[in-house]
């Protein structure tokens, strides 16, 4: 049974502070969508609204054709995985996993059978009789995962499930989560502040800021074609250059930076360019060279990246981050020019 999750114009308040602003989000059946953002962006609030631990001030939340908006939390039938595992300390691993089945009136023998089968799937069969306190962090999170999956919920939700694990385990666990989620085809909502985690695990990622979704897209699209400067900065476009078009010649556009430098850009390679726009470039996207055409700058600190040198550059109070080739190291204080590499740049609408 796979169903979709829909949030329509959901707003939420803590006291008089609005933490979610007219949020609309659709997670397709069987899809894993991540909510990604810094703390306070509203991602956890969204999850808690869907779980039923918070009430929205307006809007509707649907799971398939069920309206969850006013349904008590314990009737929502959602599998939840918490950051701090939240295992029941007074119950054995098996009883932890069987807890949800017990609430559903499944008889004891069947409960044990299904709990044991689920523990086998997460590789913890031999730990069934232990108490949670005797498990490591990774094992605890596997039990939590088994406990959420065993009730075969139409929706799984993860609240920063890997934040308390060490780096190596985090990678293993996210593969595990993805494997189990795919195998069951369970619609999932995944909350994290870790970009790598979100991009590696999700079908689509919603990047959130100040109670709004800034962009909801596949990781590939987010990474290559961010829709606005917030998302661009979030995915590593460290140079956001305000530009104005001064001349159009066929597909070639000449545009001016704020400090007067002129760049020639090709619409064939960068897509349509409006009269006012932001040129977003990763450090890889601004090539540092001793001469040629581009933005004239003075070089600052040089750092070694292995594949290239990175330079902090300044021009008329503007600062940029650009990469230069290893064969031609330049020194601090040298004059140089920055030219955009179209494959590593994108055109964004000017901020209003």
């Amino acid at each position, binding site marked *: 049974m796979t169903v979709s999750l829909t949030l329509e114009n959901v707003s939420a308040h803590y006291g008089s502070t609005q933490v979610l602003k007219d949020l609309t989000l659709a997670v397709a059946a069987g899809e894993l969508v991540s909510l990604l953002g810094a703390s306070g962006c509203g991602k956890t609030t969204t999850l808690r609204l869907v*779980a*039923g*631990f918070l009430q929205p001030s307006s809007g509707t939340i649907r799971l398939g054709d069920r309206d969850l908006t006013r349904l*008590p*939390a*314990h*009737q*929502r*039938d*959602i*599998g*939840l995985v*918490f*950051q*701090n595992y*939240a*295992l*029941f*300390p*007074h119950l054995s691993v098996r009883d932890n996993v069987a*807890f*949800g089945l017990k*609430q*559903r009136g499944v008889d004891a023998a069947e409960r044990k059978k299904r709990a044991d089968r689920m523990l086998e799937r997460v590789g913890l069969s031999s730990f069934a009789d232990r108490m949670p306190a005797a498990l490591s962090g990774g094992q605890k999170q596997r039990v*939590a995962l088994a*406990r*959420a999956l065993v*009730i075969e919920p139409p929706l799984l939700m993860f609240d920063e499930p890997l934040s308390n694990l060490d780096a190596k385990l985090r990678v293993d666990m996210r593969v595990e989560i993805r494997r189990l989620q795919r195998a069951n085809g369970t619609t999932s909502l995944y909350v994290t502040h870790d970009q790598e985690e979100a991009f590696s695990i999700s079908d689509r990622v919603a990047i959130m800021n100040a109670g709004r979704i800034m962009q909801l897209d596949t990781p590939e699209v987010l990474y290559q074609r961010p829709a606005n400067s917030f998302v661009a900065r979030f995915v590593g476009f460290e140079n956001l250059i305000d530009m104005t078009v001064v001349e159009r010649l066929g597909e070639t556009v000449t545009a001016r930076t704020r400090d007067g430098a002129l760049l020639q850009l090709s619409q064939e390679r960068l897509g349509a360019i409006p009269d006012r726009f932001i040129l977003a470039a990763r450090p890889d996207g601004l090539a540092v060279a001793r001469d040629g055409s581009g933005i004239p700058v003075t070089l600052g600190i040089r750092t070694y990246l292995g594949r290239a040198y990175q330079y902090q550059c300044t021009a008329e109070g503007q600062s940029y981050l650009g990469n230069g080739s290893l064969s031609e190291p330049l020194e601090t204080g040298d004059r140089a020019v920055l030219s955009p590499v179209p494959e590593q740049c994108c055109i964004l609408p000017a901020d209003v």
Partner: protein
Amino acid sequence: MIMQTKLHPALIAIASLIFLILIAPLFIILGAAVSDTPFLTFPPQGFTLKWFSNIFQIEAFRTTAITSLQIAFLGTFLALLIGIPAAYALNRFKIRLPSWLSNVFVLPILVPEIVLGFSLMKNITIGLQLPVYTTLLLGHTLLVLPYAVRVVGASLASFDFSIEEAAISLGCPPLKTFLTVVLPNISAGVVAAFILAFITSINDVSISLFLTGPGVSTLPIQILAHMEQFFDPTIASVSVLLMLLTVGVMAIVEATLGLTFLTK
């Protein structure tokens, strides 16, 4: 070789002296209780257990002991019935509740007991004309409520409420979650609160002094009353029995939870 830190002789002397001052009265009582004299004296002259058997001859000691135990059990039970949900709410909704609210539950300890007792007598016994037994029970419930709220609250302070949310998300209704998930995980705090409250109630004089009345009295009040009439070692032997009861309760705590539990 590890150098053992030597304790300063003065430290040992002072510590011993304090220990002696704390423990000596108890030994004096023990001695007085077995003295074969019709008056309280120490050191004991002769040895007899007749004062212990005398306790059981006096009807008033038996009835007040039963009242004391009933009031202590019922009062503690009522205090936990109010105190556990109060402690839960204070911890669960900490952010939304005003910070002074938790202090309200400590007021019965902060206000001098004699004032509390007098005020209860004036307003409940005289004002509302409630039966003496009911008033006594209410008074003791109020007296031990702070222990229930504070000790259970300490347990809840380290309780991770996402465990409760996990249970609810798995389909367990809120009240059932409280009883089957929250309560088992704070049971040690509840037991500790019960013991502290019970001992406090059993030993209370100030509040009981005002709230006891015709036909209803507690053991400590009976001890006072008895002493006013007879200055015989019966008082000492009752005290010894009360001490043994307390030691017994403490031994059970030590065996099951460890005494450090109470000081946490």
